[in-house]
């Protein structure tokens, strides 16, 4: 950042030039920014101030007139109105952002109130987006706030809808939605400020297509999963028994049975982590014994379904207990191979245990009230029976009141639903006892089963404030000053660590693509119009071999041509659909082209309209740089999913720094001589700044 010439500083707006000369004013404003402020002129300020609303005085002073007016005109989207979202909305409103849209699907829960300060007790179960809007609006009537109580993944939030915003803020709590917004913002080429917190930790990241790394440039932690045999046959930790209670037993009795829930685990996501039960990994040994065990477990599940029919019957708890804690354990124990190197499980006798709980029956409420204590085996049985009764009563009630046409009602695990939590906690603890595993308190089980992430007001306040500070860089287009900030609450020298925004990863499957928007009339436009007209002619694929996919599968490839005459509508392609073009060229394949389909009016005799110019410069896929041979002949190897190191970073940095040439162009010479240069650059830059 260069110091502006002092003359520029003195011609700062609001002084002698005044706003009457727009061209001059603009010039001086462009030179000005808050890092290099004009000197205040105490004598001149009162006159200048009178021209701006008094309530905007501090923003005007600190941001400077240019940035302040950009903020006032900005139309921004905030996705998520939870912990970060409430703080962010407050900050946006007071910064004077002109129009703020809020999207949140969630409703308000009691456990939100310790930090989501726009919500009160009386708002519980109401829409977060709507309540947040109402609460914030009254503090700045000049700001227009629009609330959408909806899922950001809904089809009507199309790429063109995103494109109408100047900036998007993510204030989300789950991986899936974050990824979705990331993808949409990249397709719309709208900058995104991504943020997140966990306990005292948090971070903020600026995402701009082609300029900074996107959300998916670094692989995210994969969901935690456990092999089914660990859950069903050989648990060794409390979490194994908790997952058993939550994902197996509760579902078998009150939810959708296991087969379906395994298929449907995308629904189980919270905060990006779900506990999948899969057979993967353990089957690789193709062990006969395991195959046999799978068979046995299937039988057990079938038997459970029969018990499920006894819901509400007086002996239901006894039937269930004797099945899962006695008979099944006996059977498991009899498989001697399994217990050669492990302690064999000890089945429990219902009647015997029940006899010991008689004296506890009266103290049921005090047991339930103490969730911090680790319950004894007997206490767990009391809770098991009690929660089972509560759940049974509920499901019977649900069945009575349901429509005949409606599917059978289910009860699914919810960490804030005490009936399900008590049931999972007690059955997990009983199972732990059987396998000689430590029991846990309900408080701890709630955290483990519900993937609860600690959350506090302070961290959210810090992160939301940082989001807006970063948004100023974005609004000024000053990406070189944009930061990726991590809170480092336990570092004694500094409480946050800002880093230069990372470069995009060239092999990122999400942002390392060429985006184009195509307007079509799905009832008229055919796939052939897309393949021949758009791809081969307009985008310049020419004689290249390529594959065209949608979310479901292949629409077109050189051997798969029968869809060509079909109308797009008949192929399920509609407004908001995404199509991906994969170049099959062996030598110099282009990066994938992602087409965003929009429905709209077309000029007469036109079948489509592309957002791009004719024959745009589509970059080539990055080449794999051989580890040893820096100047290697790798041209033939890079035909698709190659993993490259930091090679293109050097290239990109070079081009962004020399005058803002679009990166795409820089990389698309296509001539083989360019490739050599890229590789040489890589030789020099490969080590620098990569992690």
């Amino acid at each position, binding site marked *: 950042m260069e110091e502006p010439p002092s003359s520029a500083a003195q011609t700062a707006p609001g002084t002698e030039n005044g706003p009457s000369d727009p061209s001059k004013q603009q010039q001086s404003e462009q030179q000005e920014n*808050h890092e290099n*402020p004009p000197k*205040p002129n*105490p004598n001149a*300020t009162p006159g200048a101030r009178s021209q701006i609303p*008094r*309530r905007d*005085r*501090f*923003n005007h*002073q*600190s941001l400077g007139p240019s940035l302040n007016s950009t903020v006032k005109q900005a139309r921004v989207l905030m996705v998520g109105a939870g912990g970060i979202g409430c*703080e962010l909305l*407050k900050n946006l409103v*007071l910064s004077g952002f002109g129009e703020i849209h809020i999207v949140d699907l969630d409703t308000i829960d*009691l*456990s939100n109130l*310790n*930090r989501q*300060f726009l919500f009160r007790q009386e708002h519980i179960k109401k829409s977060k987006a709507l309540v947040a809007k109402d609460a914030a609006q009254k503090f700045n*009537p000049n700001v227009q706030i629009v609330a959408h109580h909806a899922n950001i993944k809904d089809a009507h939030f199309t790429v063109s809808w995103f494109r109408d915003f100047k900036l998007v803020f993510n204030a989300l709590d789950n991986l899936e939605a974050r990824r979705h917004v990331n993808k949409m913002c990249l397709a719309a080429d709208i900058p995104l400020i991504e943020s997140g917190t966990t*306990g*005292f930790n948090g971070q903020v990241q600026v995402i701009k297509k082609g300029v900074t790394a996107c959300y998916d440039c670094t692989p995210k932690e994969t969901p935690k999963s456990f092999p089914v045999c660990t859950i069903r046959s050989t648990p060794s930790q409390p979490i194994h028994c908790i997952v058993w209670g939550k994902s197996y037993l509760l579902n078998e009795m009150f939810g959708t049975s296991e087969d379906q829930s395994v298929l449907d685990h995308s629904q189980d996501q919270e905060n990006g982590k779900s506990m999948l039960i899969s057979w993967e990994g353990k089957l690789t040994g193709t062990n006969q014994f395991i195959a046999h065990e799978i068979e046995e477990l299937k039988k057990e599940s079938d038997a459970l379904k029969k018990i499920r029919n006894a819901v509400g*019957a*007086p002996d239901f708890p006894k039937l269930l207990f004797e099945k899962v804690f006695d008979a099944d354990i006996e059977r498991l124990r009899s498989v001697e191979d399994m217990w050669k*190197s492990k*302690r064999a499980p000890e089945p429990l006798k219902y009647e015997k245990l029940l006899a010991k709980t008689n004296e506890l029956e009266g103290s049921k*409420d005090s047991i*339930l*009230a103490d*969730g911090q204590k680790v319950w004894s085996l007997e206490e767990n049985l009391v809770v098991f029976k009690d929660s089972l*009764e509560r759940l049974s009563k509920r499901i019977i009630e649900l069945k009575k009141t349901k429509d005949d046409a409606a599917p059978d009602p289910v009860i699914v695990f919810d960490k*804030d639903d*005490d009936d399900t*939590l008590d049931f999972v906690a007690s059955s997990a603890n009983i199972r732990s006892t059987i*396998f*000689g*595993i430590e029991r846990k308190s*309900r408080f701890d089980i*709630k*955290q483990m089963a519900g993937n*609860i*992430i*600690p*959350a*506090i007001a*302070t961290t959210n*306040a*810090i992160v939301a*404030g*940082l989001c807006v*500070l970063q948004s100023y860089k974005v609004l000024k287009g000053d990406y070189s000053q944009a930061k990726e*900030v991590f809170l480092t609450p*336990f570092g*004694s020298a*500094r*409480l946050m*660590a*800002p880093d*230069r925004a990372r470069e995009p990863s060239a092999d990122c499957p999400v942002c390392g693509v060429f985006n184009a928007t195509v307007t079509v009339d799905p009832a008229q436009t055919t796939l052939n119009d897309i393949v021949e007209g758009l791809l081969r002619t307009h985008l310049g694929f020419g004689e290249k071999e390529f594959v065209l996919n949608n979310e479901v599968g292949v629409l077109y490839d050189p051997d798969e041509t029968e869809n060509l005459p079909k109308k797009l509508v008949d192929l399920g392609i509609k407004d908001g659909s995404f199509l991906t073009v994969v170049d099959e060229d062996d030598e110099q394949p282009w990066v994938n082209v992602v087409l965003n389909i929009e429905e709209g009016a077309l000029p007469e005799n036109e079948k489509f309209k592309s957002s791009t110019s004719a024959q745009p410069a589509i970059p080539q896929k990055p080449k794999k740089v051989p580890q040893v041979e820096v100047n290697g002949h790798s041209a033939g190897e890079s035909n698709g999913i190659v993993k490259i190191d930091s090679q293109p970073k050097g290239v990109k940095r070079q081009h962004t720094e020399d005058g803002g040439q679009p990166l795409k162009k820089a990389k698309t010479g296509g001539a083989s001589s360019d490739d050599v240069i890229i590789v040489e650059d890589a030789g020099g830059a490969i080590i620098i700044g990569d992690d």
Partner: protein
Amino acid sequence: MTEILVQTPPVLQGPSEKERKYDRQLRLWAASGQAALESSNILLLNSGSGTVGVETLKNLVLPGIGSFTIADDAIVHDEDLGVNFFLDESSKGKSRAQCCTDFLVELNPEVNGSWWPKSSDDQRLEQLFEATQTPFTMILYSLPIQPERLSILQEYSRQHQTPLVAVHSAGFYSYFSVNLHGAFPIVDTHPDDTATADLRLLSPWPALLDFTKEMTRDIDNLDNHLHGHLPLVVILLYYLDLWKQGHDGAYPANYSEKVAFRNAVSDAMRRDIPEGGEENFEEAVAAVMKHVVPPQLPSSLKQVFDYQPSGSDDTKSSFWIIAEAVKQFYNRHGVLPVSGGLPDMKAQSEVYIKLQNLYKDKARQDAQEVLAIVRGIAGGKDIDTAEVELFCTNARFIKLVNPAEGRTVDLAQAVEQQLANDEIAALAGPEMPLTLIPIYLALTATSHQGVATAEQILASIQDRVPAAAGNERVQKAAEEVARATGGELHNTSAVMGGMVAQEMIKIITKQYIPIENTCIFDGIESRCQVLRL
């Protein structure tokens, strides 16, 4: 059974409503921290443009402090509405303290809020302190502030040993500093899980040795299953004993001896088995460097032992009594009480549980001994057993914040050092951040008068730290502060409100380690620096 069900009226079950509301934070500071918060009474002395203090208070009201008072004699103007969220159109012309209090208490019905002054002839701060029934737990004030008010505040805070926090936010710049009035011990520092295990391999107690002897009686003839499930603690104790026999009763002490010992353990692993090696031995080998260490007195705890609390109040506080008892325990045994934790390791379940119980029993026994000593010290009769146990469990991680009470840092010296570091940083490149002390200097030049020209700010810096006034970055900081003309930028104050509240929560709950003692924030670069000033 369904019959019973129908008869049983629905009862209040599960965690209380309050526990559910605070669930997400209880997972960080637990019931003990929450109780401390709920019994706290906070004073905010608000001045200047008045947002950063209210933002901080918001972040304390939400998690549930007991009560707060806002002292602020400002009247709400249009400017306030543009920067302070807890004011609206209807607030104009009214007391800022009153309006903010009204909005803040809405955030959490469990918190009591009050405001001051109630009338214009009641504006002497002494009157507020005289009228206050329960002493303040902690005081926050925002700058710029009238010097007379500040000295009254400082006097009260010194007299009552009330931790005092100052915060100043102007434009993109801000800083806050914490004055704890003397040494501030923290028992519950929440150390990293991986750091907490204390296996006592070089000072085992008899029961642990007996257990090891029992398990390894015939170690060479154990079947592969049993041999492959010896816990690493047992393996290491067994081979340490062998080592001692070959080394005149001495344990491996230096690095090369430890490497030799590690090799010996590795050599003892059975490899002629289908798996080709044993996981438990691999764990034992990996644990050598970390766990084969003589029991040490960590420097932080030594600081506690060596500390001479001044005044009679301090010596009576339960912390110092327990510290004295643990010190006596240490002098008696040469080791600290066993913490009782045992990390997960490869072992048969029942063996692991036995081992776990050995550590737990020993920890209980040691804590009992400390408790007995505590009871013998004057003032130790009524100390809570749980407090003694917590002290024993966390002994190695106890931290004495601000041990050098009364020793003031020479500002000029600190600044010189920071600026000298910058010269090195300039050579090192962008990886080494430059000091933020210019921001602190420029802001403190406006501690009592928010609006000042850059020249006035530099003149003040010249007076305090002559060496800094000519520095280019100091000049820029002065210009930036001058440009803000005492106005706050909401986002800067929002960030600071989060950071200040976080430090206050650490101090109120006496959990986690608070910063020492000044944090400077640069909102242009989104970074901060912590300095002892």
